[in-house]
């Protein structure tokens, strides 16, 4: 599942993962909608943009990890920032970070590697 407030980025990641890895990818445009969709669909992983209006990626991750129903779902942050507070990333329980720009052909493999699964 992809949670990102930018419609073009959301669609690009969705199409990339669907066509390069054959994954079915649900999308949400903000943190609140994303949390509801995660609880409804229990995806294998959640890719969430860090900087979103309202609820940011850190808060989305923190809430997912606090809920026993979603706590084991790996969360990967997506960001255009050059540097992140690694301690904060670890503290909220994220599996890892993808930095924009990312290689589209390798995106599924990178996500799988961060989540400790195979693509």
């Amino acid at each position: 599942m992809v949670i990102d407030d930018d419609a073009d980025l959301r669609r690009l990641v969705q199409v990339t993962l669907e066509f390069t890895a054959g994954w079915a990818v649900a999308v949400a445009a903000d943190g609140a909608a994303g949390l509801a969709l995660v609880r409804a669909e229990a995806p294998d992983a959640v890719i969430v943009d860090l900087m979103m209006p309202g609820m940011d990626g850190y808060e989305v991750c923190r809430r997912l990890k606090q809920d026993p129903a979603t706590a084991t779902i790996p969360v990967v942050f997506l960001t255009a920032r050059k540097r992140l507070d690694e301690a904060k990333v670890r503290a909220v329980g994220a599996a890892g970070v993808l930095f924009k720009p990312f290689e589209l052909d390798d995106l599924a493999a990178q996500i799988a590697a961060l989540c400790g699964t195979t693509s």
Partner: protein
Amino acid sequence: MSDPNRPSGAERDAAFAAVLREFVDGLPQRLLVLRTALEGLARGEQGDLLETLHVRAHSLKGTAAAFGALEVSACARAVEDRAHRWVRGGAVRRDELPAARDELRRLEQAAAAYAAGAFPGGSR
């Protein structure tokens, strides 16, 4: 034997072309939001214009980079960085408005150049 459920190369190309088209077609609206925010700040308008300038420039920086529009991304970063400095400083630096307008103009030019070359041969 090919998998009938596996999308063909043509289907994949069409899907990516459609996503690219949406991004390119949406560039003028993204730029209008930035221009409107900056000019509103120049007129001394209050509200969330500075946050809009910062967040929307940040968003364009990342999305443009993902689409391979690296010059657009770099120009958006310049707009974002200045807006971020204003946010941290608590106010718009009026003496920096001409430079901010120049950065936004360069972003608009980069976006126009990218859009002009996004669909070689004009095939949209």
